[in-house]
């Protein structure tokens, strides 16, 4: 009973709309502080990277972000360092820093855009929205359509063979996996994978017995640890079939962890690596 109620709340996902906090943004946004690596990447791929004046410490792409001022992390963006950069737009996602902190920045006279991009649908909408905002509407639409088309192709290619029963691991000790509500879950189909974890929220923690009980055919390891460390972890698990142990896919870069412009490209190369065809 409890579980079905919980599952209901977890499975219902609304497509959230962008929210503005603080004053209206200027007609031409010139100085952007981005509080999410995915948003930073979107601005850069719309060729407006030189407007970005501050990023979080988790920003890794493109190279240019490494020299930009850092204003904190996801949960602890620092208001003072943000305001000091004199931005005319703070670009955030619903999880950045907490609503109070975002409102506070708004009260300091800086426009804050909370742009949801936690599902594929939201990501497409976010690309269009950001494109319009930065005067790159045409490019944004083209980028979005290319991404969608390529994703469709991948899904079609994958649908030709039965999807592999997959566990997506995000942490080893304890074992944290991608659940049905996670962003990762939404693109597994394009990789020819089917998430066997059907409940437990975004990131359930499971034990080895549950893992074995799921009878995965493939393990998609997104912990971003070294190949050696990942292999030694999975090979040591008792009672997991040798077939599965030979099917450990180790994610090498963070492109797939972020709902940003590199997602589809990352999926394409992984698909190629897995199935040997586009």
């Amino acid at each position, binding site marked *: 009973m409890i579980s079905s109620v919980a599952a209901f709340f977890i499975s219902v996902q609304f497509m959230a709309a962008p929210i503005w906090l603080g004053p209206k943004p200027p007609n031409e946004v010139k100085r952007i502080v981005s509080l999410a690596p995915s948003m930073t990447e979107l601005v850069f791929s719309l060729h407006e990277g030189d407007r970005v004046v501050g990023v979080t410490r988790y920003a890794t792409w493109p190279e240019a972000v490494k020299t930009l001022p850092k204003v904190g992390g996801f949960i602890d963006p620092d208001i003072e360092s943000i305001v000091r950069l004199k931005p005319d737009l703070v670009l955030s996602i619903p999880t950045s820093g907490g609503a109070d902190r975002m409102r506070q920045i708004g009260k300091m006279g800086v426009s804050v855009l909370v742009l949801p991009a936690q599902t594929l649908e939201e990501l497409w909408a976010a690309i269009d929205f950001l494109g319009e905002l930065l005067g790159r509407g045409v490019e944004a639409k083209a980028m979005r359509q290319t991404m969608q088309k390529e994703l469709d192709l991948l899904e079609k290619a994958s649908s030709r063979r039965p999807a592999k029963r997959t566990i997506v691991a995000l942490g080893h000790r*304890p074992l944290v996996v991608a659940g049905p509500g996670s962003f990762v879950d939404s693109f597994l189909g394009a990789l020819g994978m089917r998430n066997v*974890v059907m*409940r*437990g929220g975004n990131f359930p*923690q*499971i034990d080895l017995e549950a893992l074995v*009980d799921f009878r995965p055919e493939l393990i998609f390891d997104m912990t971003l640890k070294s190949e050696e460390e990942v292999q030694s972890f999975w090979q040591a698990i008792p*009672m997991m079939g040798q077939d599965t142990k030979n099917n450990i896919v180790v994610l090498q870069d963070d492109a797939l962890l972020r709902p940003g412009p590199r997602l589809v490209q990352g999926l394409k190369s992984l698909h190629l690596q897995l199935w040997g065809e586009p």
Partner: protein
Amino acid sequence: MNRFATLILLGLFLTLVFLLALGVGTSSVDLFAFLRPDEIVLRLRLPRVILAALVGAGLAASGVTFQALLRNPLADPYIVGVSGGAALGGIVALVLGVTSHFILPAFAFMGAAGSALAIFTLARWSGRSDPLSLLLMGVIFNAFAGALVTFVKTIVSATKAQEILFWLMGVIGVEPMSTLLGLGLYLLVASIVLVLFSNALNILVLGEEKALALGLETTSIRMACFLAAALMVGAVVAFAGMVGFVGLVVPHILRRMFGADHRWLLPASLLGGAGFMVVADALARLTFYCFGTEIPVGVITAFTGGPFFLILFCRKDRMFAAH
């Protein structure tokens, strides 16, 4: 009922919950699975139940020791700052990229022993070795260690921070037999030391002056017991993270049954702690059926331990009188 019989009963209780816990899993529940163990029970549950038992034994026995050493019924490794020190040591190891199951406990032990020594020497150096000052110093040290842990969590990558966070909440996983053997060995050495000094602990509880008057080498005995308890906490924290309140709840229930004689209390706490933790961990596995995700065992022990601590605190006059 005499104490010997009670101890035997406690041993039987541990055996019973141990066997029943083998039947509780995230893929199936069959309380009598121990009668016809399959591969899942033997290879996936047995190591986990053994780890839970070892962790519980270590936490409860170190709790009894700290309570005697600090002459304070509220002292628990989690509360006096030793767990915090161990966690700090373990996190330093994680950040340095140490994942070896033999080196990680060494780091945690160094953290635990370091914090125990720091608290101990500071107390002596400042001439404040009364129970209250020691407890206060532990609390302050824990807060300090907590801040350092947060600091480390902030500067590492998001995935690593996540890993540390989960570990701090207390988790019982499946470890290879070699690891369990290693942990068992650490605990065995420490238990032998503590049981040998259990009579001395009885005298230490009477107070520094009385112990000295009775001709007890208080400083070296205190130090030996402190280090042995720190060894237990370090080894336990390295594998199970920060599991709180076991060292508080179990010794208190047992003190009701065995009185304050540490010659009985120490062996009893090893058995009782193991039993308590085996049950808590089995409950943690059951939560998987409700939520599709497992609640960390540290959360479960805190649910029982938190209210227990408060009740104890409100009745502290009676509890102090028991000493």
